[in-house]
């Protein structure tokens, strides 16, 4: 009897002792311990020794994930397989040779090297968003690196996009190191050094997930935001021939001077519903998680549909299925209209090409047609080149695609008029 009592008592003491210890005596840390890393250290594995939870979550970026809705994602298929109109619209531009879906930050350097768009003549400007070493390149010689040989700089870079692109190694505070982004915001009167933490949670992404062009001659990277973030405002900016920049390429058949859009993700999301209400990129793409009670930011940078519970449900309580359907619906609609716009633009290239072959064609009207097509292609490409397939700003993106279709049709009507057809 006594033995049973003693046993019962000791089990109780142990049991409640364990609870007391786990719940009250030894709590999970409520803050991360700062372990400074020396400036210029870019090796993520070394950072990972001090910040293992974040580092381990970032390792998931290596296992490229397909998109939960089937659009975009991190599998590197050729985009033209699903949109053959890309071959027509980008003819004469390296994007018609190789335009794969991007695989994510760990592959930024590797995929740059293997891209058929790159040649031995490629310039250093291309490395601006591929590595944290851009910090050193820029500190050493300013924008001069943009005109150096890309192949040489890639050898020096060593690491693709990683911790140091977004974190100050000594304080772990968020930072931006792409000088083009800092300059673009500065021209808009924004000082990134005074940015709030919430703004920085978007700036770190926006420094690269943005539209840009290379200034002729210097190859300096410039973000075209002087007039605003919408495709209409950016087109207006490009019409001012900034830094002497006229076009990315001239279409060899239709002779249209064209712009190539580059992933305007920051532009779309900051003008979209979430962005306007102050939701940062990281709020959805890098949600807060817990590991053994300790709060951390997920560094698996991917579609929020992979983490609906952590990313969406803190605000939207409708349940994962309804949220998925909502996103899928937006993307389906945008995709359909994007294909319509893309094929209409391709058709317009064909019509203008044929009209150009007619010797009696009105040259002025043909030029008008080319200008309309330039704008139509820009609007289509602004949506097609972005990663959200319409989600970041569905109203604006569908509106933009609608404008693209209309402009491409206007271009065809104008081309017909140039050769005296369909005049009614």
């Amino acid at each position: 009897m006594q033995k049973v009592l003693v046993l019962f008592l000791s089990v109780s003491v142990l049991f409640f002792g364990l609870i007391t210890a786990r719940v009250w005596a030894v709590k999970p840390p409520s803050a991360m311990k700062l372990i400074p890393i020396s400036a210029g250290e870019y090796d993520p594995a070394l950072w990972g020794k001090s910040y293992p939870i974040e580092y381990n979550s970032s390792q998931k970026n290596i296992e490229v994930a397909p998109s939960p809705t089937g659009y975009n994602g991190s599998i590197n298929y050729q985009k033209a397989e699903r949109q053959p109109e890309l071959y027509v619209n980008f003819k004469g531009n390296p994007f018609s040779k190789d335009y794969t879906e991007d695989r994510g930050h760990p592959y930024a350097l590797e995929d740059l090297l293997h891209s058929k768009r790159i040649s031995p003549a490629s310039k250093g400007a291309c490395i601006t968003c591929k590595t944290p070493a851009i910090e050193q390149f820029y500190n050493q010689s300013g924008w001069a690196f943009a005109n150096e040989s890309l192949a040489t700089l890639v050898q020096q870079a060593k690491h693709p996009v990683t911790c140091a692109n977004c974190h100050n190694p000594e304080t772990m505070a968020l930072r931006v190191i792409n000088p083009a982004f800092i300059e673009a915001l500065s021209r808009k009167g924004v000082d990134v050094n005074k940015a709030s933490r919430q703004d920085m949670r978007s700036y770190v992404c926006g420094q690269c997930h943005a539209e840009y062009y290379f200034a002729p001659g210097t190859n300096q990277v410039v973000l075209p935001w002087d007039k605003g973030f919408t495709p209409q405002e950016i087109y207006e900016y490009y019409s001012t021939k900034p830094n002497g920049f006229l076009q990315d390429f001239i279409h060899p058949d239709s002779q249209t001077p064209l712009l190539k859009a580059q992933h305007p993700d920051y532009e779309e999301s900051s003008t979209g519903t979430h962005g306007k209400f102050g939701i940062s990129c990281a709020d959805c793409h890098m949600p807060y998680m817990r590991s053994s009670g300790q709060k951390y930011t997920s560094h698996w940078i991917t579609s929020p549909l992979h983490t609906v519970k952590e990313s969406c449900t803190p605000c939207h309580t409708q349940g994962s299925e309804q949220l998925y359907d909502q996103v899928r619906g937006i993307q389906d609609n945008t995709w359909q209209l994007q294909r319509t716009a893309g094929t209409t633009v391709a058709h317009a290239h064909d019509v203008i090409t044929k009209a150009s072959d007619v010797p009696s064609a009105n040259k002025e009207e043909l030029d008008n047609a080319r200008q309309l097509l330039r704008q139509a292609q820009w609007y289509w490409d602004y949506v097609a080149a972005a990663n959200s397939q319409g989600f970041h700003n569905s109203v604006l993106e569908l509106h933009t695609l609608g404008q693209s279709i209309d402009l491409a049709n206007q271009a065809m009507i104008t081309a017909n008029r140039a050769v005296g057809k369909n005049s009614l």
Partner: protein
Amino acid sequence: MDEKKPFPLHVFKLLFLGFAGAIVGMLVFAGGLSYADKPTFCGSCHSMQHVYTTWQASSHQYFTCGDCHLPQDNILAKLYVKGENGMRHTYHEVLRDYPDTIFFTGTANTIVNKNCLRCHAYIVAPTALATGEQSCISCHRNFIHGRGQVEGGVKVE
């Protein structure tokens, strides 16, 4: 052998011990319950830190957690839910497997909604919301533990 006493001494001793034990037991129970009813007790768990801080900054800071989160119909219902919740929460607190954003499960939603109406029923009484099957917190869910009242995020020290 002596004449049998109707109440021998050890019976009185036992009775006394029994009463004393009962009083001590009740004191411990009442004290424990009163202690465990305090928001500081709820807030002593790591997983409750955020909701505790946001509640402190809210317009409902003068009410306790239980005022809203426990049934107030009768003491038995309250004790049952408190006991059941307490054991479940302790289990997850020991395992540390709770998520960053904690959601209602089971009847928690109904309980809170009923408690909103304990004070605010007169506001919805003249409206269509009083027809039932409506939930206050489907719209006002960020009212007490709202986002943005206190700085969130991961701190680095």
